[in-house]
């Protein structure tokens, strides 16, 4: 993410923020889909955190954890579950101009 992010992140180490997964019975029949957000050099840290809070309803700390994971590791899995909902999340993330993809868990 953006240059501001590089400066701010420093040498801080982070815990894996964890992935929210849906657990409906129907889904267990099919492998889940992942919503993955990828690093880019332009989006601001604060903006990405705000987007994660808005789209997934995550508390600030969890949203920041995912944002730092994207920045430091290049990608973060934000959510996993049914394809339709995953597609909707990816569409919302693209609406905010984040680099997001839908991927099969396997």
């Amino acid at each position, binding site marked *: 993410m953006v240059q501001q992010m590089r400066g701010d992140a420093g040498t801080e180490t982070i815990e894996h923020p964890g992935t929210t997964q849906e657990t409906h019975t129907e889904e267990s029949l099919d492998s889940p889909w992942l919503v993955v957000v990828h690093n880019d*050099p332009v989006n601001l840290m604060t903006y990405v955190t705000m987007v994660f809070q808005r789209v997934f309803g995550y508390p600030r700390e969890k949203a920041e954890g995912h944002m730092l994971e994207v920045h430091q590791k290049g990608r973060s899995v934000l959510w996993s579950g049914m394809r339709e909902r995953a597609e909707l999340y990816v569409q919302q993330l693209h609406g905010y101009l984040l680099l997001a993809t839908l991927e099969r868990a396997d």
Partner: protein
Amino acid sequence: MEICLRENAIEIFDLDPFLAELLRQIPASADPTGGDAANADPEGVRRAQERLFSVPAPRSDREICKEWKVYVEPELRRLFRSATETVAEDLKQLNEPQKPLANHTLRIPLAHSDSWLNALNQARLALHARYNFTDSELCDHERSPVASRRDLSLFQMNFYGFIQEFILRGLSEEK
């Protein structure tokens, strides 16, 4: 230039003509062609298009990418156009007649903040893609803004980022 949060709006005052002109260029900068299709570098335009409308899945997943182009991309285009139109409307404040070279004031209602964040992001991403800035350029905040068109565009990208940061701060203070 000064910027503050006042009465449900972000006010930018003492905005000199140079910075006012950079703000006026937000809608054009958000366009992959940079607002000048005739003279745009086709490779830069392609990169900007690909970044603004990035693929929703690994390219090997052709079915998802194909459906996305048909069903989702038109919606995204509408969303992005709506954001730049709102910003263009707010920017008309900068066209009010006044003395030559006088400083301007711009008032951005917080109700328009999402449109501003979106349009500024479109502009920053498109500029970055068109000019293909390197990591070292992105980290170099001391670069002269007037040495070349490329340097000016980098300054423009950073200036838009500063405005974005302030809007985000305004939104969090509003809560």
